[in-house]
């Protein structure tokens, strides 16, 4: 009799457990425990409803969490609107996590975003109605004064068809070259070269001088082409998209591929660097293993805090161009914007939080901490640049600008970053790589345009030096 009762109890527990496991879809995935009381924070002038409004914010950046967490604490304690911000850092698979959270009903109210976020396509998210357009809200006078939002609307980057989804509050500079001043001086070079062939020679000189211990240049396994070589292409007037004719054209890359292939032929590249991750290479730069490195303004923080360079003096230079002259703008990435998700139940409160993150008080400390460069001229004027450390070396050149977003096509096979890098390594000839890229990218573009997925971008009066100043047209064929 006892055994029977016991077995019935076990069966009952098992059934209950399996049923609850099947139905408990969204509730187990909260990272921060509470689904606090939420009340509509809409009332203005009426007395505040009881309870507080919890606004969930996601961000992809962990490097600034010290400052941001501290400011959030202050806000939570002192704000008079009953808003409590809960911040979650999601570093991996950001775009995937957002779309999965949205489809399962656990999406945050606000998601931080920067241009160039890998895997994230604004148009896909906008078309799926996941994001809330902010056009009316950004007209707020205070907001406009600090962020200059009306000047920072880039089609395809933070705006689709006139709907603005986020406004950047900072930017990442264009790419630069960082170099070991001691090694360069020891190789007998006094001024950093401004031509690509000059840099190739410099790398060779440093390697010859290094006697097998120190090398001229190093790359990395993680998208090496965009670290500085793409910057050289842009400033030499070479770009992958032909805006005037509305198609992809990779022909201009041939001289750059051949010049960079010379690094490999000269053996000036640190052995094994091509297959190692970014952080391993940064560590070796800090050890003085090689002289030339390339990356954008985030290296200021990296070489000051993450891998402090103490053994030598390091300098920053603009990227070289093909012939020493600047023929095109260097692309910069607008960063640190905040998107509101359409599934948010407290849109007014969420807007207050966005205003807080874009306020002068928040941004002044953030930009002075050197976490990124200011993007609005108002903030540039307000901050004290002596506090930003090495970030000052990465200050904006007058030929840096945002490029209009290239149509995002679903290509088959490797993207242009991987293919061009393959050609630089010498695994495939420059001509073959260029022909292959032209074919695949234009086929995908024609295909996607004919299916109605995207529209062809044409800027008939495109000017390489002022890429964002032309008239943007969209074509259906």
């Amino acid at each position, binding site marked *: 009799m006892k055994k029977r009762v016991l077995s019935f109890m076990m*069966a009952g527990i*098992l*059934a209950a457990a*399996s049923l609850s496991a*099947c139905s408990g879809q969204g509730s187990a995935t909260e990272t921060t425990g509470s689904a606090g009381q939420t009340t509509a924070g809409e009332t203005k002038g009426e007395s505040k409803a009881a309870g507080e409004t919890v606004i969930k914010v996601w961000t992809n950046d962990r490097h600034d969490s010290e400052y941001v967490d501290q400011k959030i604490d202050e806000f939570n304690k002192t704000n008079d609107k009953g808003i409590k911000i809960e911040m979650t850092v999601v570093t991996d*698979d950001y775009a*995937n996590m957002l*779309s999965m959270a949205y489809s399962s009903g656990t999406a945050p109210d606000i998601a931080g975003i920067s241009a160039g976020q*890998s*895997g994230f*396509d604004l148009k*896909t998210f906008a*078309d*799926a109605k996941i994001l809330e357009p902010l056009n009316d809200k950004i007209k707020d006078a205070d907001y406009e004064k600090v962020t200059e939002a009306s000047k920072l609307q880039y089609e395809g980057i933070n705006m689709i068809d006139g709907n603005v989804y986020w406004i950047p509050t900072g930017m990442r500079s264009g790419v630069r070259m960082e170099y070991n001043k001691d090694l360069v001086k020891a190789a007998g070079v006094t001024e950093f070269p401004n031509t690509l062939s000059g840099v190739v020679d410099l790398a060779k000189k440093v390697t010859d001088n290094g006697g097998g211990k120190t090398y001229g240049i190093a790359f990395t*396994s993680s998208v090496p082409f965009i670290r500085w070589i793409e910057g050289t292409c842009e400033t030499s007037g070479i770009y992958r998209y032909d805006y005037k004719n509305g198609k992809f054209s990779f022909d201009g890359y041939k001289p750059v591929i051949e010049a960079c292939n010379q690094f490999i032929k000269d053996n000036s590249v640190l*052995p*094994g660097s*091509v*297959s*190692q991750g970014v952080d*391993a290479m940064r*560590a*070796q730069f800090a050890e003085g293993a090689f002289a030339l490195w390339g990356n954008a303004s985030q290296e200021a923080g990296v070489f000051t805090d993450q891998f402090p360079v103490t053994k030598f003096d390091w300098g920053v230079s603009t990227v070289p161009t093909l012939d020493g002259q600047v023929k095109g703008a260097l692309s910069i990435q607008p960063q640190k914007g905040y998107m509101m998700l359409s599934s948010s139940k407290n849109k007014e409160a969420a807007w207050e939080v966005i205003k807080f993150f874009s306020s002068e008080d928040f941004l002044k400390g953030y930009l002075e901490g050197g976490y990124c460069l200011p993007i609005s001229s108002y903030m540039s004027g307000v901050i004290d640049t002596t506090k930003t450390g090495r970030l000052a070396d990465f200050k904006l050149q007058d030929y840096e600008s945002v490029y209009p977003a290239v149509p*995002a096509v*679903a*290509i*088959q*096979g*490797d*993207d242009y*970053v*991987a293919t061009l890098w*393959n050609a630089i390594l010498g*695994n495939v000839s420059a001509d073959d790589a260029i022909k292959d890229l032209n074919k695949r990218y234009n086929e995908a573009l024609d295909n996607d345009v004919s*299916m*109605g*997925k995207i529209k062809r971008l044409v800027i008939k009066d495109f000017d390489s030096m002022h890429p964002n100043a032309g008239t943007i047209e969209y074509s259906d064929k």
Partner: protein
Amino acid sequence: MKEKLSFGERLQKSASRGDFSSALMLLPAVFLLAVISIYPFCWLFRYIFYDYNGFTAYYIGFKNFTRMFQDAVFWRSVLHTFEYAIMKLIIILPLSLLLAVLLNQKIKGSGIFRGIYFMPTVISSAVYSLIFGFIFAVYNGVLNAYLQKLGMIHSPIDWLGSASIVMISIVIVAVWGGFGNYMILFMSGLSSISEEIYESCKMDGANGVQSFFYITLPMLSPVLKVILMLAITTALKDYESILVLTNGGPNSRSEVMFTYIYKLIFGSQTTPQIGYATVLSVMAALIIGVITAVYMYFARKLDDVV
């Protein structure tokens, strides 16, 4: 002559046999199987004719199929999958069998060794692949440092970045992670062979090696058949450790079928191409199914040995 039972009598008969209670007990498992395995499998077939990016699906007919047949990277990855599976199986199966035979003897410490060799199975493959990534590293890598100290090499070897040896490194990690598992399976098979047979063959004057080939192996054949099938299908489906170690390797050298499919959906280089990935998964499943069927055909003789 059997008379036809009425419906009520048939119900009573099956109740007394325990049909209802067994059906009820099977229900949770069948339900879970349907929801977690069968439904997603059918869901796949919705998307093989579409270009689906996770949000909107565009009908494209047979384009996914024509693309698959022209996709050189995919077919190269199929080749790499076979290369990986063959290399892994050639090493792991004899090794596990040898260790199982050695540790089956009642010598001191065999229990401890069994536990140690089984531990890699308990650790997640992503975790130990991450650690092996550090061991195989060129700069500050453990393995290179040891080999250099021992004087066996002069400059660090690029274990995971050089196209010629990346597959060997991956197979080393796979063997390390899997042999404990197969060793335990073999040991359970060995334990079913009775001692008397060994005694009688010892009396006939057989030494260790002879008794292994003439007694152990034949008696293991039904177990061997099952283990071999498991090993083959697992080796063909392995992708997590390769993804963590090399992410497809230098210039797609270590790309296997499932890393390619995974990157089409979850990779950061492209918006998700779920429709195409679905077609590739169906193809990959077909390939593994064919290989398993071929294996079962050749292995049916193993059942007749004992």
